[in-house]
Structure formats: C-alpha cells, structure tokens
C-alpha cells in the first residue's frame, strides 16, 4: 500500500511537472476555454439575462471540451517515445498509473474550472448564491471526468486514433455528469428553483461509481 501511494505521487508530480514545463494548459487549453465562452456568447446572440441562465450548461460544456484536450495530452506524454512500456516494465501497479494520471488531470481541470468560473462571472455576469455547492460540485465532477477520461484515453490512444475516437467514446458516457453538474450549478448560481444539493449527491455518486469502474479496469493500462 505504501508503494502504491508513493507511485501515485511520483506519476502525478511527474505529469504536473511536464505540464508546467510545456505550458500546454496555460498556452493552449486556457485560451481555448476562453474562446469557447466568447463564441457561445456571440453565437447565442443573447442578452446578459439569457447568458446568465445558460451559464451553467455553457460552463460544463466548456469544461468537457477542454478536458478532451487535457486527457489527450496526458496520453500523448506516455505514448511519445513509449514511456508507458517503461512504466509497465517497472513493475508499477496499473492502479497506481490510473490513479496517478487521474489525479494529474483532475488538478489541471480544477485550475481550468476556476479560470472558467471567473470567465462566466466576468463575461456573463453570473452571481454566486451558494459558493460551497459550486465548489463541491466542481470538485467531484472533475474527478469523474478525469477518471473516466483516463481509462478511455488509454484505450483510444492504444488504437492510434485518439483525436477522433476519444470524444465519441467519452462524451456520451459523461452525459449524466454533465446533467447533474449543470443542475447543481443552476441552483448555486441562482437561476433555477431546485435543490442543487440533491443534484450534487447524484454527481458525487456518479464520481464514486466511475472512479471505482476506472480503478477496476486498470489492468487495461498494463496491456494497452
């Protein structure tokens, strides 16, 4: 167990160090997220009130699209020069590879969510009514996206068609997370009279299920 946690820490810190060096998150993913928010605003040709009403959905669609980039990038790190073969030969538990990479993607997505959150407040004039609901939902949903994304990222990249296959595989399966997180955000941003904490519980349950399924499927990483 001690070795497992040590390996998770090593893989997460290695991935984050590589991201800090390459600056893909800062130079490519964050501007992409900002462009999405602006384009949605222009495409909907909406007034501030309409944008505020749609803000939750637009936020989560932006997160999912950016997550695709982050997941794809995370897999590229391992596929370029076949570093994944080295990881498998090192006798690392595939569960450590799965959890290590999931943590790294989740941390990047959290940073991105903060950036996008500031974006919808500034661009769409959204107002936060329940800060903790916002934070809790953002945290759990990003773990769910990262866990499922890691498994499907490895599967898609192993087939050599990750750019086209990953969205087709991943997005439909993330639909329940998108719905739950959007509803919870609707309440947290005060645009819907619903109990957002019920929707948070739904997202948290999905997160536990998806992370467990991902951890259970970790053997795919050893043979992929």
């Amino acid at each position, binding site marked *: 167990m001690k070795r497992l946690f040590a390996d998770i820490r090593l893989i997460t810190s290695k991935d984050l160090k590589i991201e800090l060096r390459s600056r893909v998150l800062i130079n490519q993913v964050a501007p992409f997220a900002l462009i999405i928010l602006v384009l949605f605003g222009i495409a909907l040709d909406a007034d501030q009130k309409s944008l505020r009403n749609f803000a939750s959905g637009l936020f989560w669609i932006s997160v999912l699209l950016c997550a695709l980039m982050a997941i794809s990038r995370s897999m590229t790190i391992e596929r370029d020069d076949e570093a994944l073969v*080295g990881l498998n*030969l*090192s006798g690392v538990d595939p569960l450590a590879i799965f959890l290590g990479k999931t943590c790294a993607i989740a941390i990047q997505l959290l940073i991105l969510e903060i950036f996008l959150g500031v974006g919808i407040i500034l661009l769409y004039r959204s107002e936060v009514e329940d800060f903790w609901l916002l934070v809790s939902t953002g945290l759990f949903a990003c773990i769910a996206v990262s866990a499922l994304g890691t498994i499907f990222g490895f599967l898609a990249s192993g087939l050599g068609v990750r750019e086209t296959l990953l969205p087709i595989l991943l997005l439909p399966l993330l639909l329940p997370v998108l719905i739950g997180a959007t509803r919870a955000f609707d309440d947290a941003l005060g645009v819907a009279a619903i109990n957002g904490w019920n929707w948070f519980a739904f997202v948290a349950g999905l997160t536990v299920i998806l992370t467990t399924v991902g951890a259970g499927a970790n053997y795919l990483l050893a043979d992929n």
Partner: protein
Amino acid sequence: MSVVKLDGLVALLEGFPALTGVDLTVNAGEIVFVKGPNGAGKTTLLHLCAGLIQPKDGTGSILGHDLSSERTEIRKRVGLLSHSSGLYRDLTVLENITFWTQIAGVEQSEIDSRIVWALERMELGSKLQNQKVRSLSVGQKRRTSLAVFIVRRPDLWLMDEPHAGLDQEGRQIVDDLIEESVGAGATVIVASHDFERVANLSTRIVTLSGGAVLDADREGNR
C-alpha cells in the same frame, strides 16, 4: 539453469502471426545474439521475453516465471532497451533517470548512488544532466536510455539494436556494459544488424526468419 525457455511459442501482432512457433532455450550467463532480416520477428521475440505480449500458443518461462500467467513478475526482473527512447521529452536527463529509478522501486538508500553510477557509466556530464531530453541529439538520448536501462540492474537484458545512434565511444561503453553484466550474473539477448560487432560479443548466435528459429546452435566469437 535456463533463464529463457520457449516451446512452440506463437505470438500475434495486430492479428498477424509475428512468431510462428519459436523453440529457444537461453541459459544463465549467456550472451545470445539474435539475427535475422527485417520482419523476422526479432523485436517481437524481445517483447515476448519481456512479458509485454501475451503468447497465442505454446508454452514458455522467463527467469522461472510462466510467460502466460506471470507476466507481471517477469516485467519486474527484465530490462528492455528498445528502438524508442522511453523518456519524457520535457524532463531533464537527471529528472528522467531519477523518476525511472524511483518508479522501479529501488531502495531509497541506494537511489542516489545508483543514479551517480549510471550517469558516470554513460558519461553524461553535469551540463548534459540538466538539459531537457527534447534538446538532446540522437546519441545523447540513447545514452540516457541506456542509463535508465542499467540503473534498474535487471536479471535479463533484452537489447534491440543497442549500438544504434551511438558514436564509437558509446558503442564501446555498451560492449563493456554487456560484458560486465554477465560477470555480475545477468543474461543478455541482443537483436542487431551489426553482425560483426555483436557476434564478437556473444556466446551464441540465433537466426530468426519468418517468425521461426532457423538455427539456434551457432557459437559466437566470444
């Protein structure tokens, strides 16, 4: 004692048979040179011995572990030097070697001394150690890959074209490392097109063709 024992091993690559019934035994302390034309199955054979490929048919054991059911155990004890560098481009040479040493589960007390040894052995000076892998030449990358390879001190060395991309000095270092590893109790299988050089190093030459062993009994020049 046989380190590698393969009986009628069949392996598929993308659905096509890359190895079509390989019979091969390699004993402890041997340096076996695997030769053959492109597409003969040399790389697949090394990947199979490393536990990276599940055999389709036949039986086999590596270092006493069953090739079908104990591949995780096999992977922990073999080293594979392949065509790809296996390095992270945005980490420095030192960061790469440190990461691979730690992830291999080397004892904490041994990590620093092993890294220093590997860096010195591959003649990776202090200036080079702090360079990103992305900025290295082919030969410098190969030296870094070799440092990562030797730092784990595997029991079975599987080397695919180990001299590729290296200058004369680097090639000599590889030859010396192979000799030293056998002296330290390891077994080495080298796949290469550099016939003369590797034949002089090896104790036995195995010829592969069309995914099968044509000849496994020719003596090397060592």
